[in-house]
């Protein structure tokens, strides 16, 4: 094992060696630099290996031949090894990335870089306070030098911006170092030692003036973490410095400073932990808030860096509470942040322009887009990355200890951060790309790819660690997820091969596992897997390679499958996040779906956070629990768990108030994606509700029965969804609003909490999957052919697209619930279910919603297929075969399900008996009998068929010579029309209805969320004006920070 001292020696020696080299032989100097950094990296890696694999003990290295307190000692432990590896690797990769700049800058520049890395390593290793000060000063000086590497557009190295940023940095660091020195000397005076461990043992706080001494030191070191408000200088550096330096500054300097704070907290003891928490959480929230209105990419990354560091500080501050899992959490967050932020800064160096929207240029290189996705996922703590595990543990432990305010603030900040990161990703995918080629030079792309690889490796590692610590399976080993991820590697294949693979995979997985589900889950499994495969048939209509589609789609399906297979809260939540992310990428693929995808992911993540909080509350300190044991949650927490989970799930089912993402997201999605996200994805939310209600049943909060509240929400959702659908001009939006309404019905059934209510919900689940997939495909096919989704621009397409017409016809009959098709079954069960329900008033609302469906359904079929054919659409062809085929299968399915609903429902009915023994159905022969009524689907089908055929035959006999007339063979108002545009009555179809009922469709909810978003933005925009760019203000901010902490912290 090489002594850790060599980490420092190597850098210093290399720096001196550089001075001896011929200044003109820059290549050689560069090689020396790289070798030194690589050597340092290897040493760290070696130590890390030794600590993790061989399990050796931490090693102290004594200098100057004496033991502390008479000399300085360094310590190498697991944390140090990991952190120095991070620092050295970042340094090495940044040095690679800086190849051009370093070669141009010459050996001095390289020496400064080496010193910088060495100083960071020193901060991590040293156990001596004064030594810490020296290394910090070295970091300041070398950073002030490296800032100038920036290659601004307006004039060579060290142009104006980075120059002023560097000076501001120096100003603030002067204040900081004065504080640090004073603190150190007083602490020394009080304890007689400079050794950190020695001082910790001497309990500095008890000595005279010890508290003040520690306060001064603590403020100085914490200031290196860029806490709010003393962080304007750091933002300026992030904005103006060379991205490779920013990578070091964010990833390595941040990590080193955090570790210094950690060491310092050893001295301070427990009473300083709340202060650290406070500083951390305020910084986390403020930085994320200020980042919202940001448009400059690097400054945004700067804000994000500051926020993440703040979050880790919170974790350090909570270490009393977190106990042994502190390193797991802190490192999970820190390492995610470091890898992702370094990667993003390196990426930013590949682009010329600095606005967020200019990142659209990255689309030229799918690999780099994947890198961006990886980094974003790491920063937002999505599975399977370390941040996800860390977030889970953190939230669980905080909830277990009753730290709800802190928990809420953390989730709020994380949501805001996800907001701006995903908005950025939306820009990247959707905004017009600037005309520039993204350079693909190896030394610049290489570090990015290393970061990506590191991210995935860490994901595996943390899954493994979590397995060891909490006894879980590694997410990255879950078969569905692996299957989805394998499409990343197969993305070069043509779409049809991938499509076949996907279908085969889903069907095979179903065949392998179908015996494992109970009837309830089996229905969902069939919809998710077989239904998903069926919708994928439509994807054969897309040619080319369709980069990015299959990983996203398979991720969504993998998430859904894992959801129904999950037995523990952790697996459930991980699956929930996976399906959310997958569907987000799918939705984002639509042409104009950028804002809608954003609101989808925000609502979904917000919902996911609520679910997380609910699980954490239910777990009561345990790392996870069996889903079934939700039933055993004790009284004071139980209703809150219920509320959190229910609201979380309802973000997915788009219950009223949380629904505004759905219309845009479903309408703007691609033709074959709409059925997936509508027909299939929405069911995930319902599944969640089922799990929740089965386990927890009826809960009361402040005397209010929560299922009663759910009934109201569901009924209002059904009403508003249907009502909004009536007034849509866009066919897919109409269907989307209709989905909201249908989900309202299903939710209503669940909230009834009786046997038939649940059965009704399941009928809706099945029906809605079939007919909504079919309708979305049909309408999508029409939109594809006509080039518009505005229904009034269509008309008379029945003869040109007869198969699509049939699908829509069958679909609307089924949706409306008219016998003899399957929708009636749902209505029949519904009426029987509410006969025994306890609450009647919500039903009134649902009754109101019912007939409204006819309005939008008729409008859908009439304005598209009937009425007047437009001149420009006369050559329109039937939708592509692969889009029509699944529709025809759905038609067949609907008919089958209409005649023999028992096929699916009998088993569920029997299964439900164990939860709701009362009020089941009696399945006698063809007749289905409830406690109140009866229904014979076969007889209905036959009778209606016979009457229809008879009447039809009669008409055929009488009217056999009917003559087909041309389009305009109609007369009204004594005129013969000739223009379809003026004759096709379609726009604002329900004008009188709007006059009467339009008051119910005021966009109150949209306005509420818009105002909220506006408020956040405005708050961020006002707040960030604190950073007025003046170096003196920044100095003042630091002093103000100290004073505020002094008084607020009550020191």
């Amino acid at each position, binding site marked *: 094992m090489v002594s850790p001292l060599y980490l420092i020696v190597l850098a210093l020696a290399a720096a001196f060696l550089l001075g001896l080299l011929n200044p003109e032989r820059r290549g050689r100097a560069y090689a020396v630099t790289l070798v030194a950094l690589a050597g340092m990296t290897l040493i760290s890696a070696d130590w890390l290996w030794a600590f993790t694999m061989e399990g050796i003990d931490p090693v102290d290295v004594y200098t100057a031949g004496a033991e502390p307190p008479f000399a300085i000692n360094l310590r190498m432990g697991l944390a140090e090894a990991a952190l120095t590896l991070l620092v050295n690797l970042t340094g090495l990769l940044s040095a690679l990335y800086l190849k051009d700049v370093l070669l141009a800058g010459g050996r001095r520049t390289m020496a400064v870089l080496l010193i910088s890395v060495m100083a960071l390593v020193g901060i991590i290793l040293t156990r001596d306070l004064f030594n810490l000060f020296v290394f910090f000063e070295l970091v300041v000086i070398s950073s002030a030098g490296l800032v100038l590497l920036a290659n601004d557009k307006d004039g060579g190295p060290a142009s104006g911006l980075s120059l002023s940023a560097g000076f501001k940095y120096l100003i603030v660091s002067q204040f900081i170092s004065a504080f640090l020195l004073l603190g150190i000397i007083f602490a020394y005076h009080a304890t007689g030692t400079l050794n950190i461990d020695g001082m910790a043992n001497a309990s500095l706080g008890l000595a005279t003036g010890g508290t003040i001494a520690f306060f001064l030191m603590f403020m100085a070191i914490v200031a290196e973490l860029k806490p709010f408000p003393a962080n304007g200088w750091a933002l300026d550096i992030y904005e103006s410095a060379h991205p490779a330096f920013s990578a070091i500054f964010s990833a390595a300097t941040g990590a080193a400073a955090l570790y210094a704070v950690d060491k310092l907290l050893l001295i301070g003891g427990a009473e300083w932990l709340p202060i650290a928490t406070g500083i951390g959480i305020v910084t986390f929230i403020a930085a994320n808030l200020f980042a919202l209105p940001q448009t400059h990419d690097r400054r945004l990354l700067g804000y994000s860096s500051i926020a993440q560091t703040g979050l880790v500080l919170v974790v350090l501050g909570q270490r009393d509470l977190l106990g042994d899992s502190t390193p797991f959490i802190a490192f999970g967050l820190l390492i995610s942040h470091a890898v992702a932020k370094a990667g993003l800064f390196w990426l930013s160096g590949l682009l010329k322009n600095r606005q967020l929207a200019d990142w659209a240029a990255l689309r030229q290189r799918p690999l780099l887009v994947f890198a961006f996705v990886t980094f974003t996922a790491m920063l937002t703590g999505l599975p399977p990355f370390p941040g996800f595990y860390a977030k889970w543990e953190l939230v669980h432990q905080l909830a277990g200890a009753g730290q709800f305010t802190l928990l809420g603030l953390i989730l709020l900040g994380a949501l805001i951060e996800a907001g701006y990161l995903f908005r950025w990703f939306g820009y990247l995918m959707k905004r017009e790309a600037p005309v520039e080629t993204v350079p693909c030079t190896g030394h610049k792309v290489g570090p990015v790819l290393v970061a990506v690889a590191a991210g995935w490796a860490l994901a595996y590692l943390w899954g493994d660690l979590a397995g060891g610590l909490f006894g879980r399976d590694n997410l990255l080993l879950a078969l569905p997820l692996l299957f989805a991820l394998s499409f990343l590697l197969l993305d070069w294949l043509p779409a049809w091969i991938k499509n076949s693979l996907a279908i085969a995979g889903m069907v095979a997985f179903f065949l392998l596992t179908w015996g494992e589900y109970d009837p309830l889950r089996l229905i969902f499994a069939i919809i998710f897997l077989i239904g998903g495969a069926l919708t994928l048939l439509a994807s054969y209509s897309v040619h080319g390679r369709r980069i990015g589609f299959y990983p996203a789609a398979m991720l969504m399906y993998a998430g859904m499958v894992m959801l129904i297979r999950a037995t523990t809260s952790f697996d459930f939540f991980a699956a929930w996040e996976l399906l959310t992310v997958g569907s987000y990428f799918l939705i984002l693929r639509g042409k104009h779906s950028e804002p809608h995808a954003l609101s989808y992911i925000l609502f979904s993540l917000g919902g996911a956070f609520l679910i997380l909080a609910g699980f954490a509350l239910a777990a009561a300190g345990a790392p996870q629990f069996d889903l079934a044991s939700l039933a055993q949650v004790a009284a004071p927490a139980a209703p809150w768990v219920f509320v959190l989970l229910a609201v979380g799930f309802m973000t997915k089912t788009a219950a009223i108030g949380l629904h505004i993402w759905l219309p845009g997201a479903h309408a703007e999605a691609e033709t074959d994606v709409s059925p997936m996200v509508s027909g299939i994805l929405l069911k995930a939310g319902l599944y969640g509700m089922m799990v929740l209600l089965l386990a927890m049943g009826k809960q009361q909060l402040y005397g209010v029965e929560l299922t009663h509240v759910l009934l109201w929400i569901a009924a209002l959702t059904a009403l508003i969804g249907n009502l909004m659908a009536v007034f849509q001009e866009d066919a897919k939006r109409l269907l989307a609003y209709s989905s909201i309404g249908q989900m309202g019905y299903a939710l209503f059934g669940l909230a009834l909490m009786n046997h038939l209510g649940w059965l009704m919900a399941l009928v809706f689940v099945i029906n809605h999957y079939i007919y909504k997939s079919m309708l979305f495909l049909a309408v999508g096919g029409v939109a594809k052919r006509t080039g518009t989704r505005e229904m009034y621009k269509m008309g*008379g397409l*029945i003869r040109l697209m007869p198969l699509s017409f049939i699908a829509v016809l069958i679909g*609307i009959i089924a949706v*409306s*619930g*008219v*016998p003899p098709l399957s929708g009636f079954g749902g209505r*029949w069960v519904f*009426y*029987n279910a*509410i*006969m025994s329900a306890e609450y*009647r*008033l919500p*039903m*009134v609302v649902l*009754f109101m919603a*019912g*007939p409204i469906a*006819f*309005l939008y359904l*008729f409008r859908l*079929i*009439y304005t598209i297929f*009937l*009425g*007047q054919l437009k001149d420009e659409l006369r050559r329109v062809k039937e939708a592509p075969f692969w889009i029509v085929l699944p529709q025809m299968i759905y038609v067949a399915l609907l008919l089958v399900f209409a005649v023999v609903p028992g096929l699916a429902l009998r088993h569920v009915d029997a299964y439900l008996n164990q939860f709701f023994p009362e009020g089941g159905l009696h399945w006698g022969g063809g*007749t289905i009998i*409830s406690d*109140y*009524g*009866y*229904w*014979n689907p076969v*007889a*209905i089908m036959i*009778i*209606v068929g016979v*009457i*229809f055929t008879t*009447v*039809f035959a*009669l*008409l055929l006999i*009488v*009217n056999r*010579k*009917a*003559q*087909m*007339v041309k*389009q305009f063979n*109609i007369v*009204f108002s004594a005129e013969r029309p000739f223009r379809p545009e003026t004759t*096709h*009555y379609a726009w604002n179809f329900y*004008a*009188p*209805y709007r006059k*009467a009922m339009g008051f119910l469709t005021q966009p109150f909810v949209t306005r509420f969320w818009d105002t909220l978003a506006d408020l956040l933005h405005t708050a961020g925009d006002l707040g960030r004006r604190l950073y007025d760019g003046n170096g003196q203000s920044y100095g003042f901010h630091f002093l103000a920070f100290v004073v505020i902490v002094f008084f607020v912290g009550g020191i």
Partner: protein
Amino acid sequence: MDFEWIKIPYALLTLFIVVNFGMLLGAFIQKIGARVGRRHGIPIWQNYADLIKNFGLRTSITHGVMFYLGPVFRLTGGIGLLLFVPTIYGSEMFSNLSFSGDLILALYFVFFGTLGMALGAGESGHPHAAIGISRGLSQVSMAELPFALAVFAVALQYQTLSVTDIVAAQQGGIANWTLFTNPVAVAAAMLGFLGSMMRPPFDVVIAPQEIPIGPPTEYHSSYLALMQTNRAIFPIAKIVIYMNLFFGGAASWPVFFLKVFLIYMVSVIVGVVFPRFRVEQSIRWFLVWAVPLGVLSIVLV
């Protein structure tokens, strides 16, 4: 209540009686309307003449498949509605095909004909057809609501969804009728009834002046004949439901004829007295006056 083949001729017999009754009743009511307006009115057999004439017309055009099928849907809807509900209480013969479903089936099957008809008319491309449908659907969506609420109230009251059982519960004297046991529900239902009978003040949907009779604009000859047949059956089929739910049903044909006539007359009397509402006015009217009654009836049960 299982299927037997003998039910088919019985059902056809019901159909035959109701068609004839409907034709005569329709003409009779036309005549009453005319007399109120100091006109002479049509002869009582006028509907038969029209039917024969329409079936006999030789000119016949079509705008397409849906157009052709529209009246078929319409008539199927009417006949089906009639046959899914028992006509005469206590008579095995005239319980029709009610073994295939309960009250809910009837309620939802009402829309079968309407929907098919609307589609057929829509294919004609005639804008007035579409305008008529849009108005009709708008109005129906609200007019049905008090009725649906009342039906639900009645179902709750008797704890069954079977029409036969509901009628059975009302036997044994006029005081047992829902009309007296649950007057609020009946009031709500009857207000809804006004809205669905296509008579003033809620008949802007077929508005004879502004738009030549709405959806049926383009239909003629045998199409019109089918629709005319339906026009005879459908109101009666609907009234049968009202009669069964609220007015004690009918145990014999004479009682049946009387009750149907009287119930029909409610809408006629209101119709000749009141002027016509615009659609949004009628929606608001139902929302303000009829729906609260319906809600009340549910709360009170």
